[in-house]
C-alpha cells in the first residue's frame, strides 16, 4: 500500500506537463471517451492527453460500440492496433445511456475485461451503486478534474502491469489496506462546503479508494462510490 501511495503522491508533485510514466509502461494507455457534450469531450480529451493517454473521443454509445467493433459480429478481433485500455463514458446520453453501454461491454466476451468508468453530473447514490455493481470500475461526479484522471490512470497502469486475472484481487487488497491507513473522521471534518449545489455526500463507505499519502495536505481522497471534494488544489 505504502508503495502505491508514495508513487502516486510523487506523481502528483510532478509538473502537469512533465507527467512521468513508470519505467515499465512502454505503451501509452488508450482511452475511449464517450460523451454527447462537445464541451465535455474537449475537456476530457485534454485531461487524458495531458495525463499521457491516447484518446479517442466519440459522441454516443453506438459510435463507441462501432469503434470497438461490437455492433458487428462478436467474433471480430481485428482491432489490435486500436486496443482500448479504458472506456470512460458519460451516464446521461440520448439513445444509449452510459449504463447501457456498460452492460453491453460487460456482456461481450471480447471486451468485458476493459475497465469502464462512468461520469455523471448527478451525485445519485442509487445510480452510482448500480453502475459499480454492474461492473463499472469507478464513478466520477462531473465536472471531471485532473485528479480524477490521475487516480484512474494510476490503478489502470498498475492493473495492466499485473495482468487481468489479478486486477480484481489487487483492487480489493488496495481498498483493504487503505482502510487501515485512511482516517474517515478527519476526512469528514475537513470537507469544505464550497457551494450549495455540491454539498458533501454521506459518510464514506468502507471502500475508500485512497491513493494519496494521507499526510499530504493537498491530497485528494477520492472514493469510487463517493466524490468527496476536499481541496481545490491539484
Amino acid at each position, binding site marked *: 500500500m505504502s508503495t502505491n501511495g508514495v508513487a502516486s503522491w510523487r506523481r502528483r508533485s510532478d509538473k*502537469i*506537463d512533465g507527467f512521468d510514466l513508470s519505467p515499465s509502461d512502454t505503451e501509452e494507455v488508450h482511452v475511449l471517451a464517450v460523451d454527447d*457534450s*462537445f*464541451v*465535455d469531450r*474537449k*475537456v476530457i480529451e*485534454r*485531461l487524458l*492527453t*495531458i495525463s499521457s493517454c491516447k484518446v479517442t473521443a466519440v459522441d454516443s454509445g453506438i459510435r463507441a460500440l462501432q469503434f470497438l467493433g461490437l455492433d458487428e459480429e462478436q467474433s471480430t478481433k481485428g482491432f489490435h492496433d486500436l486496443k482500448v485500455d479504458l472506456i470512460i463514458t458519460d451516464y*446521461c446520453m*440520448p439513445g444509449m445511456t452510459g449504463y447501457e453501454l456498460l452492460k453491453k461491454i460487460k456482456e461481450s466476451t471480447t471486451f468485458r475485461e476493459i475497465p469502464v468508468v462512468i461520469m455523471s*453530473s448527478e451525485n445519485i447514490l442509487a445510480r452510482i451503486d448500480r453502475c459499480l455493481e454492474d461492473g463499472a470500475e469507478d464513478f466520477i461526479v*462531473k*465536472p*471531471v*478534474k*485532473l485528479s480524477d484522471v490521475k487516480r484512474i490512470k494510476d490503478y489502470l497502469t498498475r492493473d495492466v502491469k499485473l495482468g487481468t486475472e489479478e486486477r480484481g484481487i489487487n483492487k480489493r487488497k488496495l481498498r483493504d489496506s487503505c482502510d487501515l491507513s485512511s482516517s474517515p473522521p478527519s476526512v469528514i471534518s475537513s470537507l469544505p462546503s*464550497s*457551494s*450549495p*449545489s455540491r454539498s458533501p455526500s454521506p459518510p464514506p463507505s468502507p471502500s475508500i479508494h485512497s491513493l494519496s499519502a494521507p499526510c499530504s495536505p493537498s491530497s485528494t481522497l477520492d472514493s469510487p462510490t463517493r466524490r468527496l471534494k476536499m481541496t*481545490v488544489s*491539484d
Partner: protein
Amino acid sequence: MLGLDADRLRADMNRLLALLFHQGVLDEQFLQLQQLQDESSPNFVSEVVNIYFHESEKLLRNLRSLLMDREFSDYKKLGIHLNQMMGSSSSIGAKRVRNVCVAFRAASEQNNRAGCLRALELLEHEYCYLNNKLHELFQIEQQRVLAAGVRYPMHM
C-alpha cells in the same frame, strides 16, 4: 515599456478573475481549465469557452422558442436542453449560470410555465454577463500576449 504593459495587463486579468470568483460567476473548475493550458495547447481555455458559447446560445434559443410557443407542454424536452446547459456550464466552471439552470429545472419539473419563463430571463441575463466578462478576459489576455511577446509563457 512593453514589459510594464504586459504586467499591468496581467494584473488587470487577475483582478477581473478575482472579481468573477468573488461574485460566484466562476468556480474552481475554471482554474482547472487554466491548468490544462500550456505551450502544447496554448488556446485551450478560449477554445473550450467558445464551444460553450456557441452551444449555449443554441440551447437558449431552443429554450426560448419552446416556452414562447402558446401550445407549449413538452417539459421533458425543456429538461433535456437544461441538463445540457447545466452540464456544460459546470464543466467550464460557470457556477452562477449552472445554479440558475438548477432552479429552472425545478420549475420545469413542477410544470410551472411562469416560473420557467422567469428562470429563462434570469438565465439569459446571467449568461450574457458571463459572456461579456469572459470576452473581456480573453481580450485582455490577447493584449497581454502581444505586449509581452512570444518569449513569455502563457500562464495565467
